[in-house]
Structure formats: structure tokens, C-alpha cells
């Protein structure tokens, strides 16, 4: 077929895709008879209220000398790994604030870190386009550094996010600036599956975040600079199961809702959104009007264990605690006593939901817990 005819077919196909997407969007709109806040209000749900000391900072983890970019808890809730611009991973005992490991990275440009489900290993990735695994029980080398035990090499762009597949230390999923996500086998160091890419139907820009479904570890969601979130089944690489449109900017962060049927997103457009994975509905938008012209970007999100609270870090240093049912901000951790002095870049809930850890460009991590009183019956 001549190239000119190919180009005509290409243009016609693009037009057809755009037309179908518009029609799909309109059909979906007809099904959006309410959102979560509208439903909750109509059923008499009252807002969560926080007193000034109900959620307090009970630990400040100091030790990094650069911006903190990423953090992750162990499933046993007592340890945290953090990654920083200073080129180190630090493993902390969350209860005592002690540092158990300070790992100097071969490439200082780290963007993400993750704890393995058993807590034996940590993974990190960044601008070196690789994901490096460290076994915390390994002996250090003669310089006192923990050696890299496995290097996962294959991405053609920076590694923006990584997460171990729950309940096994063998598989990890990474997202990358090369527009793909990859499922890796750590024992062989090889790619098991590549999601998206040049000739597969996937993201069309850098992928910035992944979140694996805790209820079904074969399913994960990714967020991208193309403004979409996509749902993937690890058994099907050729195409995303579903694409979620709606955001008007990069989707910086994605996180599954505790029930495993929904997930949240945070974006450069300043909104967080809640989507349903089974039917693709956008169930809620979380957005607070600002008097400034500049809308702060959402950098990171996390849900509380019940899903009632959505924690969202913003580029202006705010950390809103949203009541997910009523879509209202109930607390701003960015303005309470002893809060961070700069942008909160990462958030994470402990496995039992009792503590929130925040990491910031002020080089610190902070652990927040409930500090109020409860009625004892």
C-alpha cells in the first residue's frame, strides 16, 4: 500500500478513535446520576470532624540531607524505607526512629523505593532507568555499603515508581518514562511482561505511578502524563483492560481504594478523583477552590484503611485530609503544629492503618497518628 494511502488511513483512524471516545464519554455521562458526595448527603451522612490534636505528628525521622521523594512501609508496620535526593535509601524503625540501614545508591538520582512483602529486601529506581534490589541481610562491602543484589535492566526511560507484587518477594512492577509498565521476575532479573510500548496499546506518555490491587494482585492501575489512568491484568499485556479519562493534566499518583473495586488518582490539574474499575465510572472529584491563580498539583495520595479518609499531598505544601464520602477537606496536615516546612512528596499508610507517614522536600519524614480521645464503652 502506498505511503500516502497509509497516511490517509492513519488520519481517518485517528478521527474514528476520537469520535468513538467522545460518544463513549457522552454515554457514560448519562450513567453518572450522582457522585459519592451527592449520594452520601442525600442519605444523611455527617462529615468527619477532627479536633486540633486528633491527628498529631508523633515522630519526625531526621537523617536525609536531601529532598525525600518516596517512602514505603513494611507489611509488619514497624519499618519504613525512604528514598532521597541525597542518593540514599534509609530504613527506619518507625517506633524508635532509629535508622537500621543507610544505603548509598550507585545512582543518586532515585525517584522511588519499595519494601518487599517479607521485609527482607528493598527496591529502588530512578533516572538510571534501572530498578535495583538490595537484600537487607547481605554483608556490606569493604566500604561499608550494601551491595546491589539484583539489577532489573530493560526500561528505556527513568523508573518512576515500583511496587512488589503482594505476598511474594519474586515479582515487582515498575512504571517508566518510556511509557511502559513492566512486571519483572527478580530471581532471573528478566522482564516477564511489558505493558504498553511502541506497538502495543498503552500509555502515550511517561508513566508516573502504579498501584497493585490488594484484593487481586493480578490487577494493577497506572497513571501517566497522558492524563489517563489505565487498568491492567498481568496476564494480558496487549492492551489495558480499561482507560480512565477525566483528568486535565498529568496523573502523578494512583492508589487502590481499600475495597479493591475503586482507585484514587492525583493530578497536575489539582484534583483527586475516585474511579470504579468494574465499569469505568468517575465517582467523585476532590477539589478545593483556591484564591490564587496557581492551582497546586497533587503529588501523592493514600487512603485510610476504611477508605473514609483520603490523604493528598500538594505542591504548595498542603496535605489535605479529605472526607471521601462528603468530598470535603476536614484537616490540613500542612498547616498544623510541627508540620513539614516544604512540599509533601510522598505518603503512606501503615498496614494496620494506625499511622500515616509523610515524606517531604524539607528532608524529613513524619509519622502521624491519632492523638485524641476515644470513648471507652
Amino acid at each position, binding site marked *: 500500500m502506498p*505511503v500516502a494511502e*497509509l497516511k490517509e488511513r*492513519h488520519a481517518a*483512524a485517528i478521527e*474514528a*478513535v476520537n469520535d468513538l471516545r467522545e460518544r*463513549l464519554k457522552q454515554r*457514560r455521562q448519562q*450513567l453518572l*446520576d*450522582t457522585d*459519592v458526595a*451527592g*449520594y*452520601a448527603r442525600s442519605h444523611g*451522612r455527617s462529615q*468527619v470532624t*477532627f*479536633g*486540633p490534636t*486528633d*491527628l*498529631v505528628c508523633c515522630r519526625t525521622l531526621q537523617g536525609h540531607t536531601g529532598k525525600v*521523594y518516596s517512602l514505603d512501609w513494611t507489611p509488619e508496620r514497624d519499618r519504613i524505607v525512604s528514598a532521597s535526593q541525597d542518593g540514599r535509601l534509609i530504613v527506619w524503625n518507625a517506633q524508635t526512629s532509629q535508622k537500621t540501614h543507610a544505603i548509598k545508591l550507585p545512582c543518586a538520582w532515585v525517584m522511588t523505593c519499595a519494601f518487599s512483602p517479607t521485609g527482607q529486601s528493598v527496591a529502588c529506581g530512578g*533516572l538510571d532507568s534501572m530498578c535495583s534490589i538490595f537484600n537487607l541481610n547481605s554483608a556490606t562491602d569493604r566500604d561499608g555499603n550494601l551491595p546491589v543484589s539484583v539489577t532489573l535492566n530493560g526500561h528505556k*526511560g*527513568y523508573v518512576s515508581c515500583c511496587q512488589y507484587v503482594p505476598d511474594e518477594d519474586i515479582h515487582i512492577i515498575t512504571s517508566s518514562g518510556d511509557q511502559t509498565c513492566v512486571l519483572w521476575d527478580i530471581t532471573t532479573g528478566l522482564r516477564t511482561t511489558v505493558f504498553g510500548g511502541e*506497538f*502495543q496499546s498503552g500509555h502515550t506518555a*511517561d508513566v*508516573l505511578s502504579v498501584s497493585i490491587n490488594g484484593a487481586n494482585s493480578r490487577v494493577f492501575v497506572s497513571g501517566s502524563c497522558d492524563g489517563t489512568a489505565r487498568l491492567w491484568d498481568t496476564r494480558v499485556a496487549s*492492551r489495558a483492560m480499561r482507560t480512565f479519562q477525566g483528568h486535565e493534566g498529568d496523573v502523578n499518583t494512583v492508589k487502590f481504594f481499600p*475495597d479493591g473495586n*475503586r482507585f484514587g488518582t492525583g493530578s497536575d490539574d489539582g484534583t483527586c478523583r*475516585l474511579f470504579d474499575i468494574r*465499569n469505568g*465510572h468517575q*465517582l467523585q472529584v476532590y477539589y478545593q477552590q483556591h484564591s490564587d491563580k496557581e492551582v497546586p498539583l497533587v503529588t501523592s495520595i493514600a487512603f485510610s*484503611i*476504611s*477508605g*473514609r*479518609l483520603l490523604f493528598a499531598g500538594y505542591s*504548595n505544601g498542603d496535605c489535605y485530609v479529605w472526607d*471521601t*464520602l462528603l468530598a470535603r477537606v476536614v484537616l490540613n496536615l500542612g*498547616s498544623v*503544629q510541627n508540620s513539614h*516546612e*516544604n*512540599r509533601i512528596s510522598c505518603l503512606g499508610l501503615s498496614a494496620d*492503618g*494506625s499511622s*500515616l507517614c509523610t515524606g517531604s*522536600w524539607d528532608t524529613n519524614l513524619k509519622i502521624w497518628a*491519632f492523638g*485524641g*480521645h*476515644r470513648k*471507652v464503652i
Partner: protein
Amino acid sequence: MAAGSGGSLSLPPPCPKSPPEYPDLYGKRRETAKVQMLEREISFLEVELKSVGGLQHASRCCKEVTDFVTTNSDPLIPTNRKNRKSCRLWKWLCGIPCFNLSMICCCCYSECSCHLTCRPCYNCNDMCDCSLCKCSSCNCNSCLSCCTNPRRRCCSCPKSQCCGNISCGKTCCIFRFPSCKDRCYRWKCCPKCPKVRLCCCTKNCCNLCCFLF
């Protein structure tokens, strides 16, 4: 055959030919692959369009979310407040002027837990109210006369969240990233740099590439 006058044909002058055009097979295959991908996407979208009609309304999903959230307990959410009888004494004491007890009074009026103390309020209002000590509404001009601990917004640099420890330029902070190449264009200033901001892009991208970092 010698050229002669009168009746003999003369050959046209030699004219160099352009090299033959080789087919751009790689480009053609690439274009074909893109078209195939789009046509596959069209078929997926058509299937999805047909199935949308059978989907449940959003209200059903909203009910599921509400039911799930309200069924599960949450260690971070306050439940019923304990009847703090001990604070009633403090409240009575705080009924009298308590200039020297401003810290304790702050606790009482804002219903802080009594075993915690509030940060002292300096140069804020005279009212004993912890919430006013946060100075969350500070802007840069008046910040120094507000809380004792200047907030991040009370920075003389207009883009303080960008700058950190690096001196603030007129627009964003400047940070050198060695592997940036080529010209800048929106969002792709330095291909290897994640999320480079337009405000920081200049023609000499290598040297003046601003990270979102």
C-alpha cells in the same frame, strides 16, 4: 559518427540523474503498525460502546462505597469524644484573666487534649486560641509579624517551593542535569528529565534544565 552540419541528429547534453528513491521501508512499516494499532483500538472502543448500555448507574457504585466505608472501623478517625471532666476545672480557671497561663488557656478554649500544650502565641492576636497561632493565612509580606516560626510561604523567593536550598532566580531554580540534550519544547525539554517545567526551559537545555525536583 562524426557530427556534421545539415541533417545529422545531435545528442542532448549529458544530464546527471538523481539517485533512485529507495523505498522507506522502515517508515512504511512503522506507519502500518500505527494504523493497525489504531484500527484495533477502534474495534475495542466499538465493543466498549456496545457494553456501556448494560452498565449500572453510578449511584449503585456510590452506595457500595458508602456501605464499605461506614462498615469498617478506622484507627485514624475520632469516634465519640471522652467526657473530659478534668478539663472542666481548667475551663473554670481560665475564666479569669490568665496572662501567665496563656498556654494552658489556649488548650482549654480550643479543646486541646489537656495533657498537651500549645505553642505560645507571639504577635498574633491576644486571644487564647491555638488555631490562631498557626498563621496559616500568612502571606509573605506580613509573615514576619505573625508566627514565631516562619512558614514556608514566608520566603522572599516567589517560587520557594521550587528552590529549596538553591538560590532563587527570577522564575524557577536552576539545576544542572548532565544528560539533557537538544532544544527545548513544551514538556520535553530534556527527554530524560521527568516533568520539566516550561518556565525553566531555555534553548540551552543542558545547562539550564529545571527539574520538577
